[in-house]
């Protein structure tokens, strides 16, 4: 198995009464709560933590894209990625990713990802999210009714721009280009692996299976919802003859300490900050018309903030979040055991761990990164060694006990 560290780059300093005084951490979060000095510290500590995770032994480091929010401060994860490509030497640089339907023309994404692949020497994972409702429909004003259609066209264009040897014309519904001929081109041949983060839309499962992209379920709603979604994915995958666990990834919040008292003292308040403030999203932004397709609604899958959030509007406590599986917290051996169980049960070969979340300060984040990377991660690597990982960048490190990469095509 491969284990990567995911960083959201959250704004850690929202006021105590944020939830009571404001309706949403996303879209219309008040700008007067933003302090550029805090952001300077946040970005630099985030970059330090990502670099530290690579040094401590994670297989890859992940960042992602969000807009108009205090939950994740990276409208452009590529800017972080370019620093990570320079500051690390061997780990996978996983940009999770660029919301390709939002860029006009979408070859901007093909170009920037090709730059990152060249700078990193072929260590890039290219993430293609559809994007959350808040980011796409509200933050960027993109028409939710056309978003998936635009996404499909953008994906086709980007993949073709990377792999087609001849200059070509592209006559799309949303993008028309007379001469497609990107410089630079990716270092990986034929192209970087594509990972698709999803929040439980049926269409995304089908796209991933059809195109051979990795499907990563990113949610904080815990094991039960994770099981429902991943079972759905594997049902579609198995029907297509696919059962390789490396085809799937899963995100999990993790904190490690020596005993219960220490866990509570160190992580309870920060976990509560994450779930009660960072996921405090106005429900009216959850389900713009057409964002979820009829098939997803028919399957009874909840709207994104409900799943993306945590299925509850109440404030909950650290123990309740642990109980629900929203966070895996314990001693290194307890956490190892729980993560093995999750990976086995959900059948996933890529585990993305959040070690910094909510208001966890820099030194504590580093402690959590170090202990997870050194006392948990090595004890998970042996899983799935009988499978090949077709979704790993060609020039990223393969540590002992993990499957070697093979060509993506």
């Amino acid at each position, binding site marked *: 198995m491969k284990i990567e560290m995911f960083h959201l780059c959250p704004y850690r300093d929202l006021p105590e009464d944020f939830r009571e005084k404001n309706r949403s951490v996303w879209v219309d979060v008040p700008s007067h709560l933003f302090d550029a000095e805090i952001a300077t510290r946040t970005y630099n500590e985030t970059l330090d933590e990502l670099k530290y995770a690579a040094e401590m032994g994670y297989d890859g480091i992940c960042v992602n894209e969000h807009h108009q929010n205090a939950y994740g401060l990276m409208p452009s994860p590529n800017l972080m990625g370019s620093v990570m490509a320079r500051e690390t030497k061997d780990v996978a640089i996983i940009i999770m990713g660029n919301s390709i339907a939002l860029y006009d023309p979408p070859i901007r994404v093909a170009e920037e990802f090709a730059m990152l692949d060249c700078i990193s020497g072929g260590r890039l994972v290219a993430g293609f999210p559809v994007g959350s409702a808040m980011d796409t429909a*509200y933050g960027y004003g993109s028409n939710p009714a*056309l978003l998936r259609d635009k996404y499909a066209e953008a994906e086709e264009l980007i993949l073709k721009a990377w792999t087609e040897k001849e200059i070509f014309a592209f006559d799309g519904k949303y993008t028309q280009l007379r001469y497609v001929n990107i410089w630079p081109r990716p270092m990986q041949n034929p192209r970087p692996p594509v990972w698709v983060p999803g929040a439980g839309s049926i269409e995304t499962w089908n796209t991933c299976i059809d195109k051979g992209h990795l499907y990563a379920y990113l949610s904080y709603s815990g094991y039960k919802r994770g099981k429902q979604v991943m079972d759905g994915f594997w049902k579609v995958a198995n029907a297509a003859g696919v059962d390789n666990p490396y085809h799937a990834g899963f995100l999990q919040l993790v904190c490690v300490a020596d005993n219960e008292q220490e866990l509570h003292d160190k992580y309870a308040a920060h976990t509560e900050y994450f779930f009660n403030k960072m996921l405090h999203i106005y429900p009216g932004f959850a389900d*713009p*018309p057409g964002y*979820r397709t*009829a098939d997803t609604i028919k399957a009874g899958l*909840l709207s994104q903030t409900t799943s993306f959030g945590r299925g509850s509007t109440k404030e909950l406590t650290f123990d309740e979040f642990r109980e629900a599986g929203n966070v895996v917290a314990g001693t290194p051996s307890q956490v190892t055991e729980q993560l093995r169980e999750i990976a086995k049960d959900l059948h996933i070969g890529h585990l993305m761990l959040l070690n910094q979340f909510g208001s966890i300060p820099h030194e504590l984040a580093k402690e959590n990164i170090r202990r997870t990377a050194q006392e948990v991660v090595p004890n998970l690597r042996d899983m799935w060694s009988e499978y090949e990982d077709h979704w790993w960048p060609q020039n990223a490190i393969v540590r002992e006990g993990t499957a070697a990469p093979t060509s993506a095509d």
Partner: protein
Amino acid sequence: MNERSVSVRNGDFQVDVLEGGSGDPLLYLHGIAGLQWTPFLDQLANGHTVIAPHTPGFGATTGTESLQDLQDLIYFYLDLLDDLGLDKLPLVGHSLGGMFAAELAAIQPARFSHVALAAPFGLWDDSDQIPDLFSIPLPELAAGMYANVESEPAVAVATAPSARMTEVDPDTAEGQETISYLVERSKSMSTAAKYLWPIPNRGLSKRLHRVTQPALIIWGEKDGVIPPGYADRFAAKMPNAAVHVVPDAAHMVVDEQPGYVAGLIESLLAR
């Protein structure tokens, strides 16, 4: 009232058309809340054959997936009118249908004898912004649609199942009913979003001067979906339009005051 299915563009669209009354034809384009044969249409059908199609994406009409934008939709309507042989007839549109009616009257002014627009979308003024109807809480939406928030249709809007925070179990009959409602609503609202998202302005102000027919702008005094101040903005661009603001009515003015609004339209047709 009769209901029939009309094939347009060799079956690309199957259009569900409601038709009632007798006399010269009158075209009615329904609003964002959808189409039913209401007392308002009954009143209009006194003296006219009212022809009311479900716009693609609403009711049983198919083909919304092949419409990308407003221009596609307007050309669809021109095809439908050609197929139905409709010419030189009065045009009445409400809400979203008011926006379509204004566009049709601008692109083919000679085709329509009179134009009545009830609370139409289509203009935008930064100083008097139209609320974000796709994200406001349902009770607020209901209050914008109906002057009497305790009326049955207002309560139905305020308490409708919402995908926003609903836990749905597809294995129960109740869950299935909720899911059917949500699927239908998603279809019609995502259709509306093609013409209204994120700001309900597709450049109509550049074309509205072409609507030269005798015209009437009707607005509910308490409209909370589109502020009544937009009535004068429409009239200012249309050389031959009068404005009527209707008391005790909001966005659903045609259903809230059916006799009064039908009377206004009768007077318009006499001009």
